[in-house]
């Protein structure tokens, strides 16, 4: 019975990974897969046909090719933002949880402020002031996103700090840095990976929102940017469904893939539970 639950728990994550692998393949082999240059112009407003599988937009660019190249941009922004978010969140959480006291007070004060700031408006304002380059978007996405991860990791590290094996490390004369890296980090790796996967999903959503609002990276065709074009360049008015449904679908599939991966319970898959030992 238990064995079956374990497999079921994994099935979702494996599905997510297969989806992610497909998406990554599309991103890597975009030039080979895309039938046209996404920037090349042709006949506008063509509905889907055998020549243009997903039709063309208002200046005649092939939408399928736009989507395939857009995978690169959306994934790059999502993964980079999630990576930075997770690194900052982990560092803050581990330091606050491990040292406690004044370090914890200061770091958590900052974290709490970041948590209560409404993140999308702040991101919008930041992007509006920074230049709308790829990296500035990524930075803007990271500014508030790390706080949740930091709080989760802090809570777990506070428990770990009390564990006898951490006490034992101190009696062995191990330094704080060593204990945090070698003994604490592996024990929160499950949370880090799960939160990391979910961060990619939320970063991609935020990026889509920003691009939709016209605050995306200039000159980059992300999925959100295609959506923005469809909306503001008469795609919706002209009822060009082939222009605005596909990017929405792509974003959904990608977000679902990362959420499925994030549902993977690391400890269960190892067949052991720290607190049950």
């Amino acid at each position, binding site marked *: 019975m238990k064995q079956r639950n374990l497999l079921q728990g994994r099935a979702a994550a494996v599905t997510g990974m297969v989806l992610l692998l497909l998406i990554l393949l599309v991103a890597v082999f975009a030039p080979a897969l895309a039938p046209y240059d996404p920037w090349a112009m042709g006949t506008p407003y063509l509905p889907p046909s055998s020549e243009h599988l997903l039709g063309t937009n208002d200046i005649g660019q092939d939408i399928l090719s736009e989507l395939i190249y857009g995978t690169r941009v959306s994934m790059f922004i999502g993964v980079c933002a999630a990576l930075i978010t997770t690194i900052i969140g982990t560092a803050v959480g581990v330091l606050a949880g491990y040292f406690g006291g004044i370090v914890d007070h200061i770091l958590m004060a900052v974290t709490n402020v970041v948590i209560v700031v409404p993140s999308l408006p702040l991101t919008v304002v930041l992007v509006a002031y920074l230049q709308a380059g790829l990296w500035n978007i990524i930075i803007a996405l990271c500014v508030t996103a790390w706080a949740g991860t930091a709080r989760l990791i802090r809570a777990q590290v506070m428990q770990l700090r009390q564990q006898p094996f951490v006490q034992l490390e101190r009696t062995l004369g191990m330094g704080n840095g060593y204990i945090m890296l070698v003994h604490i980090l592996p024990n929160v790796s499950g949370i880090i990976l799960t939160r990391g996967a979910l961060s990619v999903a939320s970063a991609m959503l935020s990026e889509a929102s920003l691009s939709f609002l016209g605050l995306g990276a200039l000159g980059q065709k992300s999925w959100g940017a295609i959506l923005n074009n469809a909306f503001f360049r008469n795609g919706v008015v002209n009822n060009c469904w082939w222009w605005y449904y596909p990017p929405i679908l792509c974003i959904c599939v990608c977000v679902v893939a990362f959420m499925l991966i994030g549902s993977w319970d690391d400890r269960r898959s190892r067949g052991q539970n720290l607190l049950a*030992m």
Partner: protein
Amino acid sequence: MLEIQNLTVRFQLPQGTITALEGVNLTLRDGEKLCVVGESGSGKSVLMLAVLCLLPENACVSGSILLDGEDLLQKSQKDLTEIRGMKLSYVPQGSGNSLNPLLRLGFQVSESLVAHRRLPRRGADQRSIQLLQQFHLGDEEQLVRSYPHTLSGGMRQRALLALGIAPEAPYLVADEPTKGLDSDRVGLVVDCFNSLEGCSLLCVTHDLTFAQQVADRVAIIYAGQMIEYETAERFFGSPRHPYSKALLDAVPERGLNAIPGFSPGHEDYTDACRFYNRCPCRTAQCQTQPKDRWDGERMVKCIYGAP
């Protein structure tokens, strides 16, 4: 030489102050093996944690703990990190998570050697195997590659002993190293401790049979006070304090005569001798606390306690 002078440990709690340890004086000479014996809650673990300078932050420590003449209580955290790895080693209790569940056993047993002695990882695994073989765990080559949750309680306790003796530190502090071991395995621990040449051992235990086999000297702790400090030979022959006598009478081999009553809780401390309520030979004089009666290297905290 480890000298504990007038060590008092109090804990500040919301309900008030608790005195866990009161005026303890102890000397652990080089190469000597000292067993600290006491009931649960008597303060023996606090004594051990005080020596390791690992008491929680709400502890208020006074007195001094001199390790080779240097007071550990005055040391900075950085200095303590050095001392703990090289001079002072520790064998923790095997129950609970004393080993990191996500790291292989071999890594953890020789971890201090890699960190402090710069032993290469490969050599460290070999050393782990040798150390574990000393405790007859069986199939040690396989064991160093396995994770702690695959070990039984007794195996984990022995692995922790291997871990504790790995740095070959001149001072070893052990916390109930025989807990959960059957008598054959206790024999292995005894052999191990007796073979530690030149290592001074401070061992907290309530296994009197084990203490008799290992100790050169015995310290009895009762309700936060050290009540007897004696060479093992004399202690197991003719204990001086009535509590010590009662303790030895409670050993199965000597008739399993349990001491009636319980040791007093921290809120019940009075001016009387702490053992007053349970003492078979109490008199009116015992209404005031007896002084530590030192007689050279021996001590008894009782007005009787024949020399």
